[in-house]
Protein backbone atom coordinates (compact mmCIF):
# COMPACT_ATOMS: atom_id res chain seq x y z
CA UNK A 1 0.00 0.00 0.00
CA UNK A 2 2.79 2.40 0.88
CA UNK A 3 4.52 1.69 -2.40
CA UNK A 4 1.49 2.91 -4.34
CA UNK A 5 0.77 5.89 -2.17
CA UNK A 6 4.24 7.38 -2.12
CA UNK A 7 4.43 8.28 -5.84
CA UNK A 8 0.94 9.81 -5.66
CA UNK A 9 1.93 12.07 -2.81
CA UNK A 10 5.09 12.96 -4.68
CA UNK A 11 3.12 13.88 -7.81
CA UNK A 12 0.76 16.11 -5.88
CA UNK A 13 3.74 17.82 -4.34
CA UNK A 14 5.33 18.37 -7.75
CA UNK A 15 2.14 19.69 -9.35
CA UNK A 16 1.52 21.96 -6.39
CA UNK A 17 5.08 23.24 -6.67
CA UNK A 18 4.63 24.05 -10.38
CA UNK A 19 1.58 26.21 -10.02
CA UNK A 20 3.21 28.04 -7.18
CA UNK A 21 6.49 28.96 -8.91
CA UNK A 22 4.92 29.89 -12.28
CA UNK A 23 3.25 32.95 -10.79
CA UNK A 24 6.40 34.15 -9.06
CA UNK A 25 8.57 36.76 -10.75
CA UNK A 26 12.22 35.79 -10.42
CA UNK A 27 14.26 38.18 -8.37
CA UNK A 28 17.68 37.09 -7.31
CA UNK A 29 18.90 40.27 -5.69
CA UNK A 30 19.20 38.43 -2.40
CA UNK A 31 21.26 35.60 -3.90
CA UNK A 32 25.00 35.98 -3.29
CA UNK A 33 27.47 35.67 -6.18
CA UNK A 34 30.26 33.12 -5.99
CA UNK A 35 32.67 34.14 -3.24
CA UNK A 36 35.77 35.56 -5.01
CA UNK A 37 38.05 34.04 -2.38
CA UNK A 38 37.16 30.48 -3.49
CA UNK A 39 37.29 31.24 -7.22
CA UNK A 40 39.32 28.65 -9.17
CA UNK A 41 39.67 27.83 -12.86
CA UNK A 42 38.06 24.75 -14.39
CA UNK A 43 41.64 23.54 -14.87
CA UNK A 44 41.68 22.60 -11.17
CA UNK A 45 38.97 20.02 -11.67
CA UNK A 46 40.62 18.18 -14.56
CA UNK A 47 42.53 14.92 -14.26
CA UNK A 48 46.32 15.17 -14.29
CA UNK A 49 46.42 13.76 -17.82
CA UNK A 50 44.02 16.39 -19.18
CA UNK A 51 45.93 19.14 -17.40
CA UNK A 52 49.13 17.89 -19.00
CA UNK A 53 47.47 17.88 -22.42
CA UNK A 54 46.36 21.49 -22.00
CA UNK A 55 49.82 22.64 -20.92
CA UNK A 56 51.63 20.87 -23.75
CA UNK A 57 51.73 23.46 -26.52
CA UNK A 58 52.40 20.82 -29.13
CA UNK A 59 49.91 18.11 -28.18
CA UNK A 60 47.05 20.40 -27.12
CA UNK A 61 44.65 19.86 -30.04
CA UNK A 62 43.35 23.42 -29.62
CA UNK A 63 46.68 24.57 -31.05
CA UNK A 64 45.48 23.34 -34.46
CA UNK A 65 42.97 26.20 -34.40
CA UNK A 66 45.66 28.62 -33.22
CA UNK A 67 47.73 27.62 -36.28
CA UNK A 68 44.74 28.08 -38.53
CA UNK A 69 43.95 31.44 -36.93
CA UNK A 70 47.53 32.61 -37.43
CA UNK A 71 47.28 31.73 -41.13
CA UNK A 72 43.93 33.53 -41.50
CA UNK A 73 45.32 36.52 -39.63
CA UNK A 74 47.84 37.17 -42.40
CA UNK A 75 45.59 36.04 -45.24
CA UNK A 76 44.15 38.20 -48.04
CA UNK A 77 44.65 41.74 -49.27
CA UNK A 78 42.98 43.46 -46.33
CA UNK A 79 44.48 41.04 -43.82
CA UNK A 80 44.16 41.52 -40.07
CA UNK A 81 47.95 41.75 -40.06
CA UNK A 82 47.93 44.89 -42.22
CA UNK A 83 46.65 46.83 -39.18
CA UNK A 84 47.43 44.62 -36.19
CA UNK A 85 50.40 42.79 -34.74
CA UNK A 86 49.58 39.67 -32.70
CA UNK A 87 51.30 41.39 -29.77
CA UNK A 88 48.63 44.12 -29.84
CA UNK A 89 46.27 41.52 -28.42
CA UNK A 90 48.24 40.63 -25.30
CA UNK A 91 45.38 41.89 -23.07
CA UNK A 92 42.45 41.92 -25.50
CA UNK A 93 40.66 38.73 -24.51
CA UNK A 94 40.61 39.81 -20.86
CA UNK A 95 38.46 42.83 -21.73
CA UNK A 96 35.55 41.13 -23.52
CA UNK A 97 32.59 41.21 -23.66
CA UNK A 98 32.53 45.00 -23.73
CA UNK A 99 30.22 47.82 -24.71
CA UNK A 100 30.43 48.92 -28.33
CA UNK A 101 29.39 52.56 -28.35
CA UNK A 102 29.24 52.74 -32.16
CA UNK A 103 26.52 50.09 -32.39
CA UNK A 104 25.25 50.60 -28.84
CA UNK A 105 25.36 46.96 -27.97
CA UNK A 106 27.29 44.41 -26.00
CA UNK A 107 29.92 42.69 -28.11
CA UNK A 108 32.18 39.70 -27.50
CA UNK A 109 35.45 38.77 -29.17
CA UNK A 110 33.68 36.83 -31.93
CA UNK A 111 31.44 39.83 -32.57
CA UNK A 112 34.40 42.20 -32.60
CA UNK A 113 36.21 40.08 -35.19
CA UNK A 114 33.13 39.93 -37.39
CA UNK A 115 32.58 43.65 -37.04
CA UNK A 116 36.15 44.29 -38.10
CA UNK A 117 35.59 42.04 -41.11
CA UNK A 118 32.41 43.75 -42.27
CA UNK A 119 33.31 47.39 -41.57
CA UNK A 120 37.08 47.51 -42.18
CA UNK A 121 38.00 44.50 -44.28
CA UNK A 122 34.98 44.48 -46.55
CA UNK A 123 34.50 40.77 -45.94
CA UNK A 124 31.33 38.87 -45.08
CA UNK A 125 30.83 38.07 -41.40
CA UNK A 126 31.85 34.54 -40.46
CA UNK A 127 29.16 32.20 -39.18
CA UNK A 128 29.13 31.69 -35.43
CA UNK A 129 30.86 28.42 -34.53
CA UNK A 130 32.44 28.12 -37.99
CA UNK A 131 36.00 26.80 -37.84
CA UNK A 132 37.33 30.05 -39.30
CA UNK A 133 35.70 32.27 -36.68
CA UNK A 134 36.74 29.87 -33.92
CA UNK A 135 40.30 29.86 -35.26
CA UNK A 136 40.57 33.66 -35.39
CA UNK A 137 38.97 34.04 -31.96
CA UNK A 138 41.29 31.42 -30.48
CA UNK A 139 44.35 32.98 -32.10
CA UNK A 140 43.48 36.44 -30.76
CA UNK A 141 42.45 35.16 -27.33
CA UNK A 142 45.54 33.03 -26.84
CA UNK A 143 47.74 36.13 -27.14
CA UNK A 144 46.38 37.05 -23.71
CA UNK A 145 47.05 33.64 -22.21
CA UNK A 146 48.02 33.93 -18.56
CA UNK A 147 46.62 37.45 -18.30
CA UNK A 148 43.77 37.91 -15.83
CA UNK A 149 40.18 38.60 -16.87
CA UNK A 150 39.53 42.28 -16.29
CA UNK A 151 36.16 43.29 -17.71
CA UNK A 152 34.95 46.72 -16.67
CA UNK A 153 31.23 46.97 -16.10
CA UNK A 154 30.10 50.32 -17.48
CA UNK A 155 26.65 51.82 -16.78
CA UNK A 156 25.45 50.89 -20.32
CA UNK A 157 26.20 47.24 -19.58
CA UNK A 158 24.19 47.10 -16.36
CA UNK A 159 20.95 45.83 -17.87
CA UNK A 160 22.73 43.08 -19.82
CA UNK A 161 24.65 42.14 -16.70
CA UNK A 162 21.41 41.93 -14.76
CA UNK A 163 19.68 39.73 -17.34
CA UNK A 164 22.75 37.49 -17.58
CA UNK A 165 22.76 37.17 -13.81
CA UNK A 166 19.05 36.35 -13.78
CA UNK A 167 19.66 33.70 -16.45
CA UNK A 168 22.29 32.12 -14.23
CA UNK A 169 20.00 31.91 -11.20
CA UNK A 170 16.77 30.97 -13.01
CA UNK A 171 15.66 27.36 -12.84
CA UNK A 172 14.94 26.10 -16.34
CA UNK A 173 14.20 23.03 -18.41
CA UNK A 174 12.47 19.77 -17.60
CA UNK A 175 15.06 19.15 -14.90
CA UNK A 176 14.22 22.55 -13.39
CA UNK A 177 17.81 23.40 -12.62
CA UNK A 178 19.60 26.73 -12.49
CA UNK A 179 23.28 27.13 -13.41
CA UNK A 180 23.89 28.32 -9.85
CA UNK A 181 22.61 25.11 -8.28
CA UNK A 182 25.60 23.17 -9.60
CA UNK A 183 28.27 25.79 -10.21
CA UNK A 184 27.75 27.96 -7.11
CA UNK A 185 26.29 25.51 -4.62
CA UNK A 186 27.78 22.11 -5.50
CA UNK A 187 31.14 22.72 -7.14
CA UNK A 188 33.85 20.32 -6.07
CA UNK A 189 31.25 17.57 -5.50
CA UNK A 190 30.92 14.53 -7.72
CA UNK A 191 28.32 14.26 -10.46
CA UNK A 192 28.70 10.64 -11.48
CA UNK A 193 32.32 10.36 -12.65
CA UNK A 194 32.89 14.10 -12.95
CA UNK A 195 33.85 16.75 -10.45
CA UNK A 196 31.53 19.73 -10.80
CA UNK A 197 33.47 22.84 -11.79
CA UNK A 198 32.64 26.43 -10.95
CA UNK A 199 31.60 26.99 -14.55
CA UNK A 200 34.10 29.68 -15.50
CA UNK A 201 34.62 31.05 -19.00
CA UNK A 202 38.37 31.71 -18.91
CA UNK A 203 39.36 28.74 -21.11
CA UNK A 204 37.06 29.38 -24.06
CA UNK A 205 37.17 28.84 -26.97
CA UNK A 206 38.21 25.47 -25.56
CA UNK A 207 38.88 22.01 -26.92
CA UNK A 208 36.38 19.68 -25.32
CA UNK A 209 37.21 15.99 -25.29
CA UNK A 210 33.50 15.18 -25.43
CA UNK A 211 33.06 17.25 -28.61
CA UNK A 212 36.37 16.05 -30.03
CA UNK A 213 36.69 19.58 -31.35
CA UNK A 214 37.14 23.17 -30.31
CA UNK A 215 34.03 25.16 -29.43
CA UNK A 216 32.91 28.55 -28.23
CA UNK A 217 31.52 29.51 -24.85
CA UNK A 218 28.08 29.85 -26.44
CA UNK A 219 28.20 26.26 -27.65
CA UNK A 220 29.03 25.25 -24.08
CA UNK A 221 26.04 27.27 -22.82
CA UNK A 222 23.81 25.66 -25.43
CA UNK A 223 24.92 22.27 -24.18
CA UNK A 224 24.26 23.22 -20.55
CA UNK A 225 20.73 24.25 -21.54
CA UNK A 226 20.23 20.98 -23.43
CA UNK A 227 21.64 19.14 -20.41
CA UNK A 228 18.85 20.41 -18.17
CA UNK A 229 16.43 19.84 -21.08
CA UNK A 230 15.74 23.52 -21.62
CA UNK A 231 15.24 25.24 -24.96
CA UNK A 232 18.70 26.55 -25.91
CA UNK A 233 19.16 30.12 -27.17
CA UNK A 234 20.79 30.79 -30.55
CA UNK A 235 24.60 31.03 -30.52
CA UNK A 236 25.63 34.68 -30.51
CA UNK A 237 22.21 35.80 -29.23
CA UNK A 238 21.79 38.70 -26.83
CA UNK A 239 20.78 36.27 -24.09
CA UNK A 240 23.99 34.27 -24.32
CA UNK A 241 26.01 37.49 -24.63
CA UNK A 242 24.44 38.65 -21.38
CA UNK A 243 25.33 35.34 -19.72
CA UNK A 244 28.86 35.66 -21.12
CA UNK A 245 29.10 39.07 -19.49
CA UNK A 246 27.89 37.79 -16.13
CA UNK A 247 30.34 34.87 -16.35
CA UNK A 248 33.23 37.22 -17.20
CA UNK A 249 32.49 39.38 -14.15
CA UNK A 250 32.11 36.21 -12.09
CA UNK A 251 35.50 34.94 -13.37
CA UNK A 252 37.23 38.30 -12.86
CA UNK A 253 40.89 37.74 -11.99
CA UNK A 254 41.18 34.23 -13.44
CA UNK A 255 43.83 33.87 -16.14
CA UNK A 256 42.89 33.34 -19.79
CA UNK A 257 43.71 29.71 -20.70
CA UNK A 258 42.61 29.67 -24.35
CA UNK A 259 42.87 27.14 -25.88
CA UNK A 260 42.01 25.20 -22.75
CA UNK A 261 41.26 21.49 -22.79
CA UNK A 262 38.08 20.52 -21.01
CA UNK A 263 36.26 17.21 -20.54
Amino acid at each position, binding site marked *: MMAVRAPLIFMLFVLGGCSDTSTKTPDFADRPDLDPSVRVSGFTFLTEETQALQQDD*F*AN*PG*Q*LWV*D*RGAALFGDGEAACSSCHEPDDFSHTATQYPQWNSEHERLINLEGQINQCRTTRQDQPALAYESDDLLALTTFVATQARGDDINVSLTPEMQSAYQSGRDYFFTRRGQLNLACSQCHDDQWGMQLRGDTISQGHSNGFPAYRLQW*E*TLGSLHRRLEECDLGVRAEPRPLGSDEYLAVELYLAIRAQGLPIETPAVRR
Partner: protein
Amino acid sequence: MFPVRIALPNAAKRGDIMEVRTLIQHPMETGLRRDQRGRAIPRDIITHFQCEYGGEVVFEADFFPAVAANPFLTFPLRAVESGDVIFTWTHQDGGETVETRTLTVE
Protein backbone atom coordinates in the same frame (compact mmCIF):
# COMPACT_ATOMS: atom_id res chain seq x y z
CA MET B 1 42.94 20.48 -46.18
CA PHE B 2 44.07 18.69 -43.05
CA PRO B 3 46.34 20.87 -40.89
CA VAL B 4 49.27 18.96 -39.44
CA ARG B 5 51.70 19.57 -36.58
CA ILE B 6 54.98 17.69 -36.44
CA ALA B 7 57.61 17.91 -33.70
CA LEU B 8 61.00 16.70 -34.87
CA PRO B 9 64.37 18.37 -34.19
CA ASN B 10 66.14 19.89 -37.22
CA ALA B 11 69.46 18.41 -36.20
CA ALA B 12 70.59 15.44 -34.14
CA LYS B 13 73.76 13.46 -33.35
CA ARG B 14 74.22 10.08 -34.97
CA GLY B 15 72.72 7.37 -32.82
CA ASP B 16 70.47 9.74 -30.84
CA ILE B 17 66.99 8.50 -30.16
CA MET B 18 64.50 11.29 -30.79
CA GLU B 19 60.85 11.50 -29.84
CA VAL B 20 58.73 12.27 -32.90
CA ARG B 21 55.25 13.70 -32.29
CA THR B 22 52.54 14.19 -34.89
CA LEU B 23 49.06 15.66 -34.74
CA ILE B 24 46.59 15.92 -37.63
CA GLN B 25 43.23 17.66 -37.62
CA HIS B 26 40.66 15.12 -38.75
CA PRO B 27 37.10 14.36 -37.58
CA MET B 28 37.57 10.54 -37.59
CA GLU B 29 33.83 10.15 -38.12
CA THR B 30 32.89 6.60 -37.12
CA GLY B 31 29.95 6.09 -39.49
CA LEU B 32 27.85 4.98 -36.53
CA ARG B 33 26.39 8.36 -35.61
CA ARG B 34 23.27 10.04 -36.92
CA ASP B 35 22.60 13.74 -37.45
CA GLN B 36 19.71 15.70 -35.95
CA ARG B 37 17.36 14.46 -38.66
CA GLY B 38 18.27 10.82 -38.11
CA ARG B 39 20.32 10.41 -41.25
CA ALA B 40 23.47 8.33 -40.92
CA ILE B 41 26.67 10.40 -40.99
CA PRO B 42 28.98 8.56 -43.40
CA ARG B 43 32.23 7.13 -42.13
CA ASP B 44 35.21 9.40 -42.74
CA ILE B 45 38.49 8.21 -41.28
CA ILE B 46 42.22 8.05 -41.82
CA THR B 47 43.11 4.39 -42.33
CA HIS B 48 46.89 4.40 -42.30
CA PHE B 49 49.88 6.38 -41.14
CA GLN B 50 53.50 5.83 -42.05
CA CYS B 51 56.82 7.48 -41.48
CA GLU B 52 59.63 6.99 -43.99
CA TYR B 53 63.24 7.82 -43.22
CA GLY B 54 66.35 6.91 -45.20
CA GLY B 55 64.25 5.15 -47.84
CA GLU B 56 62.73 2.82 -45.27
CA VAL B 57 59.41 2.71 -43.46
CA VAL B 58 60.42 3.19 -39.84
CA PHE B 59 56.97 3.41 -38.29
CA GLU B 60 53.46 2.64 -39.45
CA ALA B 61 50.02 2.30 -37.93
CA ASP B 62 46.56 1.24 -39.04
CA PHE B 63 43.69 3.43 -37.84
CA PHE B 64 40.13 2.25 -37.20
CA PRO B 65 36.83 4.03 -36.44
CA ALA B 66 37.48 3.83 -32.69
CA VAL B 67 40.46 6.18 -32.97
CA ALA B 68 39.53 9.61 -31.58
CA ALA B 69 39.34 12.76 -33.70
CA ASN B 70 42.60 14.64 -34.39
CA PRO B 71 44.87 11.59 -34.02
CA PHE B 72 48.06 12.24 -32.05
CA LEU B 73 51.00 9.86 -32.39
CA THR B 74 54.33 9.69 -30.58
CA PHE B 75 57.12 7.32 -31.52
CA PRO B 76 60.89 7.07 -31.12
CA LEU B 77 63.26 7.46 -34.08
CA ARG B 78 67.00 6.82 -34.13
CA ALA B 79 69.07 9.40 -36.05
CA VAL B 80 71.14 7.51 -38.62
CA GLU B 81 71.86 9.80 -41.56
CA SER B 82 70.89 13.23 -42.88
CA GLY B 83 67.85 13.18 -45.10
CA ASP B 84 64.13 13.63 -45.44
CA VAL B 85 61.63 12.25 -42.97
CA ILE B 86 58.35 11.73 -44.82
CA PHE B 87 55.05 11.49 -42.97
CA THR B 88 52.04 10.10 -44.84
CA TRP B 89 48.46 9.88 -43.64
CA THR B 90 46.25 7.84 -45.96
CA HIS B 91 42.54 8.61 -46.00
CA GLN B 92 39.83 6.02 -46.55
CA ASP B 93 39.29 7.23 -50.14
CA GLY B 94 42.98 6.70 -50.90
CA GLY B 95 43.88 10.39 -50.71
CA GLU B 96 47.10 11.23 -48.92
CA THR B 97 48.32 14.02 -46.70
CA VAL B 98 52.09 14.13 -46.97
CA GLU B 99 54.52 16.25 -44.96
CA THR B 100 58.30 16.22 -45.23
CA ARG B 101 60.87 17.39 -42.71
CA THR B 102 64.60 17.50 -43.27
CA LEU B 103 66.83 16.09 -40.57
CA THR B 104 70.55 16.92 -40.35
CA VAL B 105 72.65 14.30 -38.60
CA GLU B 106 76.14 15.25 -37.40
